[in-house]
């Protein structure tokens, strides 16, 4: 019994170490693939479980922070605006990484994102407009640029 308890404790300990361990860096400021065991700094969920909503921010230390959805990325950006060099999000339709400064964001849509912010990201305004029509919940559903979203502010749903 004691041995079992010890084993469980050891397992928990090593699991705890594993997720703290590696730091992912991007020296070229390009987007990097999502590692298996990394958690979102805002909500603590595993990012790899929600690949299709993922975002990443590259800090001035070249360290990469991953988010499981655009909403969490905005929350992080509002708190640490100074230290972020680049932000990439996944295009909703093509799933390719798109730079946040060039992307279009549909806010307040009915789509259910991992944390429920309802924000989807697109590389073209046309795609974003199309998505807004299909997943609209009225006039609140809008197509905005990155700067516009930041100006309005994002609050947890």
């Amino acid at each position, binding site marked *: 019994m004691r041995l079992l308890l010890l084993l469980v404790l050891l397992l928990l300990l090593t699991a705890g170490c594993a997720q703290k361990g590696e730091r992912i860096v991007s020296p070229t400021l390009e987007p990097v693939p999502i590692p298996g065991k990394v958690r979102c700094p805002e909500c603590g969920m595993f990012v790899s479980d929600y690949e*299709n909503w993922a975002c990443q921010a590259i800090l001035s230390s070249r360290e990469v922070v991953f988010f499981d959805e655009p909403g969490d990325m905005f929350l992080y950006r509002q708190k640490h605006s100074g230290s972020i060099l680049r932000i990439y999000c996944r295009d909703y339709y093509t799933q390719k990484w798109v730079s946040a400064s060039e992307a279009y964001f549909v806010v307040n849509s009915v789509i259910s994102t991992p944390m429920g912010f309802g924000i989807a990201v697109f590389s073209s305004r046309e795609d974003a407009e199309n998505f807004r029509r299909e997943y609209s919940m009225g006039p609140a559903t809008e197509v905005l640029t990155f700067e516009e979203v930041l100006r309005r502010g994002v609050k947890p749903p």
Partner: protein
Amino acid sequence: MSLRKHLNILDYAVHFMLRRRGKNIATVLVFTLVVFMLASVVMMMGSLREEAENTLALAPDITVQKIVAGRQGLVPLSYASRIQDIRGVSRVEGRIWGYYYDALEDATYTIIGVEHLPFRVVEGRAPRGQEVVVGEAIAKRKRIIPGDRIILRDHRGNYVKFTVVGVFSPRSSLQSADIIAMPGSIAREFFGIPDDRANDLAVYVANPAELTNIAYKISLALPDARVLTRQQIRETYDAIFGWRSGVFLAAIFGAILAFAILVWDRASGLTAEEKKEIGILKALGWSTEDVLEMRTCEGVLLALNSYLLGIILAYIHVFYLNAPLLRPVLLGWSTLYPSFELMPALSLEDLLLIFMVSVVPFMAAVIVPSWRASTIDPDEAMRGV
């Protein structure tokens, strides 16, 4: 000193059991049979589920078929370009495939047109020109190895010679066992499918969140199409497996009931003789714990042996003999396959599940009445009151 005591108790327990050989052998037999049947079903379902999961992993996100008068027809490739225009679709492929009846072997094979191989190949490479890669079951049956020729009869009745350049890995047996893969254009010619048609369309979607919406858009745009998402296929598989294993569990319900009666019989009380023996032991100075330990040893010996025996027999039955007892019930659809081998897939959870429903209740049934008997007065027990 204390170890010696425990060994003595164990020794006594073994002799206690040997003195009631008939009863204990009957218990072991029934116990083993129940574990064997439960484990067989669980192992077979586990193996089939894994195969199905492997099949699903290869299936496209959305399959589009054309329905003509309620039956499946050939899909015009113009549909592919219309689907390609839907936002979020990353790729659309027209697939060429069909069944081929081999009169010589009295078996049906599946011929697929491929540009790159969907399965792992044991040896060989992807087919080019008049070349094929065959499933492991076909290779075994027709005794062919890469480099050999096979002759197939095409839709015009001509005999066409193909060179075998590879054999699919047996690891993916259910999906690839009966497959003959050849280049798409050759398969099209072989079946006589017009250049602007395909058997069905495989649609790949980049974002799984958009999948349902795209499937809905396709069915709106193409009213004569049947749109199958991978999720729907998975649900169908689950329903089939769930239904079949349900039927079988109902069938072996009798055996489980017999087991329950046996357990209840043991639980409902000891025989007068056993009670007397416990009484004598107590009179000789055994404590309640000693009696309980002896009975626990007995229960553990019986249950563990039967459990292990049942599991081993089930493993041999399912994975070495390919489940001859369960096949007819659980594998109705596999008559197409020339041969079909179950791949060992055994999870710790399954073993634990069987353990929990067999060994644990049995142990409880052995210990509870012994505890009751060991707490009564030895004088009373010996007199048989």
